[in-house]
């Protein structure tokens, strides 16, 4: 293979790389924050928006990855869990009007503890936490109609 042919092949290879990166960006499931391609030192760098999945493939010289600030905010906390509606109905924070709510933000709950009720056809269905943790948000409003599977209360799982 002549030098000229080699050069030609390298150019073709780099073109393919470029196309593949463009393709990769489109087909990668998560949001890609940055893709950089260096011709000189043949470096390929891919940074995903989510810090949890940030990845780098760096050839010499190495280029430091920079996760954009916005991406950090998008990170989902794996310790957060939602208590969801067990059936379609109306969600109530308290056992009866005027009573204290089952839980408030900051409360610690045990597994099996009632965090609210969903009323369907005059029947009160207790909504219970499945895991121990701290209430970080009561998502559904009091007396709000909820569907099956809808997040009602968010809990940060873990022992005190």
């Amino acid at each position: 293979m002549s030098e000229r042919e080699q050069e030609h092949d390298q150019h073709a290879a780099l073109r393919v790389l470029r196309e593949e990166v463009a393709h990769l960006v489109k087909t990668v499931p998560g949001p890609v924050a940055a893709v950089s391609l260096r011709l000189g030192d043949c470096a390929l760098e891919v940074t995903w928006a989510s810090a949890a999945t940030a990845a780098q493939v760096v050839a010499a010289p190495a280029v430091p990855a920079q996760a954009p600030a916005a991406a950090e905010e998008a990170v989902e906390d794996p310790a957060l869990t939602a208590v969801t509606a067990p059936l379609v109905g109306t969600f109530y924070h308290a056992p009866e009007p005027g009573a204290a709510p089952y839980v408030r933000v900051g409360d610690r709950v045990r597994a099996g503890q009632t965090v609210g009720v969903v009323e369907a056809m005059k029947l009160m269905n207790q909504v219970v936490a499945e895991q121990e943790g701290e209430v970080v948000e009561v998502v559904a409003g009091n007396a709000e109609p909820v569907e099956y599977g809808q997040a009602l209360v968010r809990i940060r799982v873990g022992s005190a």
Partner: protein
Amino acid sequence: MSVGKVLIANRGEIALRIARTCRELGLRTVAVYSTADRHARYVAACDEAVHIGPAPARRSYLYVPAVIEAALRTGADAIHPGYGFLSEDADFARVCAGQGITFVGPRPEVMEAVGDKAKVRALMAAAGLPVLPGSEGAVGSPAEAESLGEEIGYPVIVKAAAGGGGRGIEVARDRAELREAFRRTTALAQQVFGDGSVYMERFVPAARHVEVQLLGDDSGTVVHLGERDCSLQRRNQKLIEEAPSPLLPEQVREALGAYAVAGAARVGYTGAGTMEFLVDPSGAATFMEINARIQVEHPVTEMLTGVDLVAEQLRVAAGERLSFTQEQVTLTGAAIECRINAEDPAAGFRPTPGTLAVFNPPGGPGVRVDSGFAQGDRVPPDYDSLIAKLVVWAPTRAQAIARADRALAEFEVEGPGVATTIPLLRELLALPEFAKATHTTRFVEEYLSR
């Protein structure tokens, strides 16, 4: 009593079918869906949708409080139950009434009367319909069963009074078999239907399954829209239905229509329903049961009459009269419905749910497709395996058979692990027994075991 917004308490093709008619009538629609049907086509076709529960039907489509809640919160003034699920549940119809919601179906007491297969036998006999020799109501004990067996003459059939869909039925050829059949059917009926009552009838070994489509309204008018022949079944699951019933003598056809109207009038039937008969090779017809709902195979009748049965159901539910009289019903040509299931006939009809990577329904003259799916959709493993109903119309039965085969040949359904009944349906349509229409309800099983 007017209807403006209809909650469709069903899923799949029938939910889409009902939504289509509602849209044509200018009615608003509410879909209910389980987690498995989150991305289903019928959900998108409705104006609103409520997530009512997880995949298991007993916690979603069969769970009355969830369905009622969905209706109340969306302000639906009527519930169409489709077929299966809550469609023949008189208690559900009563709950609807109690909540001020119009149930699209017969009155609860009528549903109850015709839903008890032992009671309805007696009611229809009183209305002058031919019934097979059998028990008057439920059979109380093994001893009573045995004495009845002698009286009726073997073979006899033992059926769960609350049964349906081909479950809870056994045939006994002698006293010993009867004792066992009685015990098993009672136990199964108790377990599956929550009601252990069984009744007995003489067994007709080779017969055709012919059913008459009925419509009744609050004014007491009952009309019939001709019959459908559903003799091509496997284990009581229909594969191919057609109208008119081939080889049915004209006087039998007329008699069945008259019987159906008389029987329905007797119980004050309103809405859509089906009166089922067995017709033996001599042409003798006997009443079997009433299906108090819209049926899977109702499009066959729609093709022959041009009547939208779902529209008539909704009209009657809204307190209006039927839009036509018996004299205005004309039956033209021949129609055939093929049920396309995601099942593998080569593996004992094992369901083959999965993603439909390719789904190209046929088109062109005389072809109707009712399906809850489109290309790229997933057939969930949680429900029945029906993926499409192909219904064709042609001037003659022979042309309808040719058209059905053409349309099935065009129908492309593919996906990883997905097999369908299309090849089997084409095989059955091509059989000389089907062309000559000499088949009975036992034919498919005999054919498959050849």
